[in-house]
């Protein structure tokens, strides 16, 4: 049973990690806690649903198109909402409040268009039968989640660590003014990061929609709360920390529910967050000095 629970933790943690990485990437570069990501979760899932159900694309193609399309939506929304504030050099709190308003507005629009009812992917878009790996049982959906997250995370790391653009992203996160002086096109980078982060978020949304086999306009909300916990535990602004902390949060939640009591499942993750804030305010893996723009 322990092995099965570890597998469960890996599935849950992978989704948390994927979502939190997008979230923290924008923070690292844009210096904004961008709540619009709650909307991108649902947007990605809805687009994938429409493409699978109404257009009849195979799941992988629908998922990829939906994720990229959400990336574009992310670019547009982030630019529209955040650029004026950045120009005005508004404080971080103002950006947070604006994105809160933005996510409420966008979710409501989605609610109007699609209704509150929960929708599902067509039956058997993925097999529901369990696959046995020795004593372990894993659904095709869970296996898909682990594989997709592994691929996306690897690609993201390669991009950040190995490419010129990735180096520019890191430079921008380190010091926007210096990066700008070194010839980094800051505005273009902002837009590019919005695209990448929204795409990651949409993939997380699609995977969750598949796992639960249900898609609704407010599905991003619980994930937003988890993302807060993840980035506080891991330390804001570093995708490696988000990956580790995301997996750790999944582990804490699953182990609490599996061996303590499911009543404490949600509480346990947030308890870790509070303790982290007390003991290591910049995160378990964070630098001792929080970087400031």
């Amino acid at each position, binding site marked *: 049973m322990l092995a099965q*629970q570890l597998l469960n933790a890996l599935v849950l943690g992978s989704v948390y990690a994927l979502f939190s990485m997008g979230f923290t990437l924008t923070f690292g570069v844009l210096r904004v806690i961008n709540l619009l990501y709650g909307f991108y979760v649902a947007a990605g899932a809805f687009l994938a649903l429409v493409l699978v159900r109404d257009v009849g694309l195979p799941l992988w193609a629908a998922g990829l198109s939906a994720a990229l399309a959400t990336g574009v939506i992310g670019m547009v929304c982030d630019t529209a909402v955040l650029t004026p504030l950045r120009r005005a050099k508004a404080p971080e709190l103002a950006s947070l409040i604006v994105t809160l308003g933005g996510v409420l507005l966008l979710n409501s629009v989605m609610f109007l268009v699609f209704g509150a009812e929960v929708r599902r992917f067509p039956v058997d878009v993925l097999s529901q039968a*369990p696959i046995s790996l020795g004593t372990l049982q894993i*659904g095709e959906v869970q296996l898909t989640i682990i594989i997709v997250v592994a691929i996306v995370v690897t690609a993201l790391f390669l991009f950040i660590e190995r490419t010129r653009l990735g180096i520019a992203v890191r430079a921008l996160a380190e010091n926007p003014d210096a990066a700008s002086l070194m010839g980094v096109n800051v505005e273009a980078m902002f837009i590019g990061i919005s695209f990448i982060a929204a795409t990651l978020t949409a993939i997380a949304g699609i995977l969750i929609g598949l796992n639960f086999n*249900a898609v609704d306009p407010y599905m991003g909300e*619980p994930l937003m709360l988890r993302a807060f916990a993840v980035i506080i535990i891991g330390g804001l602004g570093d995708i490696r920390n988000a990956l580790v902390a995301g997996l750790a949060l999944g582990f804490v939640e699953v182990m*609490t*529910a*599996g*061996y303590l009591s499911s009543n404490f*499942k949600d509480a346990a993750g947030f308890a870790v967050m509070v303790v982290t804030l007390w003991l290591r305010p910049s995160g378990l893996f964070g630098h001792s000095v929080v970087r400031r723009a």
Partner: protein
Amino acid sequence: MKRAVLFALAAAFGFAQPALAQDAIKVGAVEGLSGPIAKYGVPIRHGIELALDQVNAKGVIGGRKIQMIFEDSAGQKEQALTAMKKLLAVDHVVAVFGPTLSNEMFAAGPAAVERQIPDIGTSTTANGITDIGDWIFRTSLPEADVVPVTVATVKKKYGVKKVALMYANDDAFSKSGFDVMKAAVEKQGIEIATIETFSTKDTDFAAQLTKIKGLNVDAIGISALAEAGAGVVLQARQLGIPPSVVMFGGNGFNSPKVAEIAGKAAEGFMVGTPWFIGKKDPLNQQFVAAYKQKYNEDPDQFAAQAYDSLFILAEALDRAGSTDNTKLHDALLKTDHKGVLGPFRFTPHRDPALVEGVVVLAVKNGKFDTLE
């Protein structure tokens, strides 16, 4: 002058029973007939009127007809109370049906109690409805009465000895449904291996279900709203909990969404309901056919309950032999009716006494159907 001539003419032509129109027995109904609540109120009105056709075909108390007076509450407490007062004081009805919602009943019911006129709730399932007063009756089975029947059926059919219970702990409806389910399981002498919770917005139940899987239970009982509950059912089967482990749900599961979301994983999932359109009882099938013919749509549970309720009142009027309020009240308490919801009697506290009519459904080929 003109009117006198008309009366004379009427008398001259010798209408069969000229006194009949005057003698019609007035019965009121306060129902939500407009606004969002109309989806309950209109089927109730249809159910009553369908029964009225059949009752008036032979009449009550030796051939007198019942005249129904409907008032719209629009789902508003204040409007329900005004409507109730109008029916009691202006129309002098001998009995009232409704209002539709429990909240409205709590507002309007006391007026009927004050006037000592029997008021029959056909759709009010909240606790404490009949506590409003001695003149309030109800024919709708409280949801708390349905779950124990499901549990008893699960035990009888599958010989279940050990269960795991799960519920959404952030939703009042799911929690109260769980309390009823737990009590019913204990009453049946079934061992509870574990109680697991989740939240309505959760998308992952693997940890709880893995734990349950390790406990080798015979059945899993779930109290949740349809969407979250269906997610639990889906993941249970994905984690390899075999179909031999029966799953059953509280009232929230009585929705086509369950099979829609969970797909094949929902096959065999069991839930109880006071009424089911496909119930293979001749009386029920006649009702469904007549309703479809008259209104060109399927009846629902509210229509069925209202339909039975008018017969229950008509039979009580016959037993009372008059429209005297005290006699009618006592006659209602002696109700012994066989309706589309099954046999019906009142408890001394004026609630439904019997649960024989509860139907246990199981998902079969993606749809709820009566359990064979």
